[in-house]
């Protein structure tokens, strides 16, 4: 299965939910925010949200800013 994560093509061996993807791709999953195909997915819904072939997932977090 091919999906885009933060604008980069990624291959997943099996269907996964957002919770699984965040755990495997984010080294520090606390305070990660996700957007699937332009819709914000709150952390409570990650486990129930399956990612499908061709989906675009955004993983963002807080950084320093002025």
């Amino acid at each position: 299965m091919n999906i885009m994560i933060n604008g980069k093509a990624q291959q997943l061996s099996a269907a996964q939910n957002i919770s699984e993807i965040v755990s495997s791709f984010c080294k520090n999953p606390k305070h990660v925010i996700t957007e699937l195909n332009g819709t914000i997915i709150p952390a409570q819904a990650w486990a129930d949200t399956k990612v499908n072939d061709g989906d675009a997932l955004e993983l963002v977090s807080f950084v320093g800013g002025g």
Partner: protein
Amino acid sequence: MSDTLLVIAGKSFNSRFFLGTGKFKNKIDLKESIEASGSELVTVALRRIDLERHEENILEYIPKNVTLLTNTSGARNAEEAVRIARLAKASGCGHWVKIEVINDNKYLLPDNAETIKATEILAAEGFVVLPYISPDLYTARALVKAGAATIMPLGSFIGSNQGLKTKEFIQVLINEIDLPIVVDAGIGAPSQAAEAMEMGAAAVLANTAVATAQNPALLAQAFAMAIDAGRKAYLSGLPQRQSLANASSPLTGFLYDNAAAH
């Protein structure tokens, strides 16, 4: 004379110094600077996670009692600013947002018109909105109507350390707008922050100067002292400048009776 607390959207702040968290060499400098600044409101930004390397979570270095203000930096129009604000809210880390919309890469000046649009949308959604603008009376009035919680005019170009190049225009906002005026951007030294507070600004936001100082925590403390001094000077009813000399000591009644000064 006792001061009143700074109140923004019903929340009281003892400190009138807001600190930005960008450009610090390391997170320890950041943590020590926040502590030394006494700041109770700090700005953060949102970015895509770099999947290739481990990034420290900045929130772990910000004391829990400090209000987080998410900057929409990176937004080029109102729509993108709204998207960033909603993402920040989804993190559960608050609904305070600094609207920063920039689509000019040379001067990095904020787009006032897009900022008004974003403020209208986000204030209606219940965000506490602190818009960052080029100081302009009509923009500020539109922002009041749009539901802004403060107005944050720039002192000079972002990161330039040039101080209050827009002083007269900020004074207009202080005089005419019934919201806290927070001077943001270009404040490069404590003396400049004190000058803004003497004019009647409600608070000052600084980042680059502190983050890039050799000793950031020491400069953060100096800023806090200057902001406090400037605030006290403002409350004192600072006398106006005079164009001619006016002696501080009596000039008659000693040595030269009835004589003018020599």
